[in-house]
């Protein structure tokens, strides 16, 4: 299993919840839009990453989980 974070930039409205919930992989730019860590989500952060994706008010944050 491998997982990556993605954001749909058209949907994102800079609520910033994702960076609150997952500061390990997400920081905000000067206007409040998320900058994602592009590398694979480490297993110990998968739960938090799922929570961040679920909490996004516009469902712009996507956690892509793939079987290897």
């Amino acid at each position, binding site marked *: 299993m491998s997982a990556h974070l993605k954001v*749909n*930039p058209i949907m994102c409205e800079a609520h910033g919840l994702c960076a609150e919930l997952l500061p390990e992989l997400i920081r905000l*730019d000067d206007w409040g839009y998320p900058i994602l860590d592009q590398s694979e989500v480490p297993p110990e952060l998968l739960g938090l990453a799922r929570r961040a994706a679920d909490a996004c008010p516009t469902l712009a944050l996507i956690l892509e989980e793939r079987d290897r």
Partner: protein
Amino acid sequence: MGAIAAAGPPGLPRLLAGLGTAGATMTLAEHHAVHGPLPSISSTRLIEVLGHSGLRGRGGADFPTATKLRAVAERRGGSSLVVNGSETEPASSKDRLLLARLPHMVLDGAVLAARAVGAGTVIVKIGDGTPSVLRALEGAVAVRSDDRISFEIVVGPEGYVTGEETAVLHYLARGVAKPTFVPPRPYERGLRGRPTLIQNPETLSQMALIARFGSDWFRELGSDHDPGSALVTISGAVKTPGVYELAFGTSMNDLLAAAGGPTEPLQALLVGGYFGTWVRASQALRLRLSRQDLHSVGCALGSGVLIALGESACGLHESARVIDYLAEQSAGQCGPCVHGLAAIADSVGALADGVAHPQELKRVLRWTAEVRGRGACHHPDGAARFVESALSVFGDELEHHRRERCWAPPAGLPLGGVVEGAREASR
């Protein structure tokens, strides 16, 4: 493998052969007299010949045409063929030239591509700022009765990002000329959920000739890595700006000479248009028109745009105007593009005017790095690349601008319109 016809016409011009200087549109009869009729060729054979020719897309993405065709052909089932005639890069005129003056060349290619992917309709999408293109296309479509393909011409709004592939499809499907968030890619799922092939008019025109004369003929010009000819729109400090057809491998000096030569000593060249890269003249003049040469200085040919900047102009102010334009042209959908490009444009303006905070350069470069890859389309990436190259090539002048006012006259780079006084010729 390769040649279909025994021999094609030698040398240049190829695409622009038979193009008079009077500005008239070539009729179907004239087109056939110059190039011969469109041969019938199977889908498999066409893709094979295109593969052997090494033709790559001329809309800017530089993707192997055969691979793209094959991807759509394999998915079949009601696929569509779209000719992307938007040409929204302000410094490019080649697609408008082809559509307005040589519409049958483009339509030949479109018919071939449509048949190859099993599409029954060719949709030609153009911008609303060029009535001559619309007239030429309508006239051309009206006399093409033997193609067993129906043609549809769709006129959409102008604007830098409206020509982006997903924006074209979005406009055709829903009337909204803005990019969408991909995937799926158009070749997987495009119009009406069907695999859709989108091609640039020059790519289709090259295809129309390759189908006639074969891949060996195509490769007679250029090199193994960069075969064939290309249309290049040359503007800026040259005597006769316009669209020129040149062989790959042509030296930058010969390219400029094709456009009458420089009007003054040059300081830099912008290669690839406004998503492209500034290169110092001393470095640029050693280059040839080849992917390898251009990549070596961090450029790509893009849609074939070359802008010469004379010594008398100010690269910083010219670049500030371009990034202002690019920021304005954001589709307004993605935060990093809307806010990032506006801030970058303000900063570059302040740097050019010599009124920026000492830390401003560092801040702009952080922003250009941060906006990359964070839009639905590549608009922020292209704008960021442009700004980074401007600040690198003209960076030495920042200090000078801080100390005294720069009085350089505007160079009049094309922004939001066709190249002034564009001519067509080939060499």
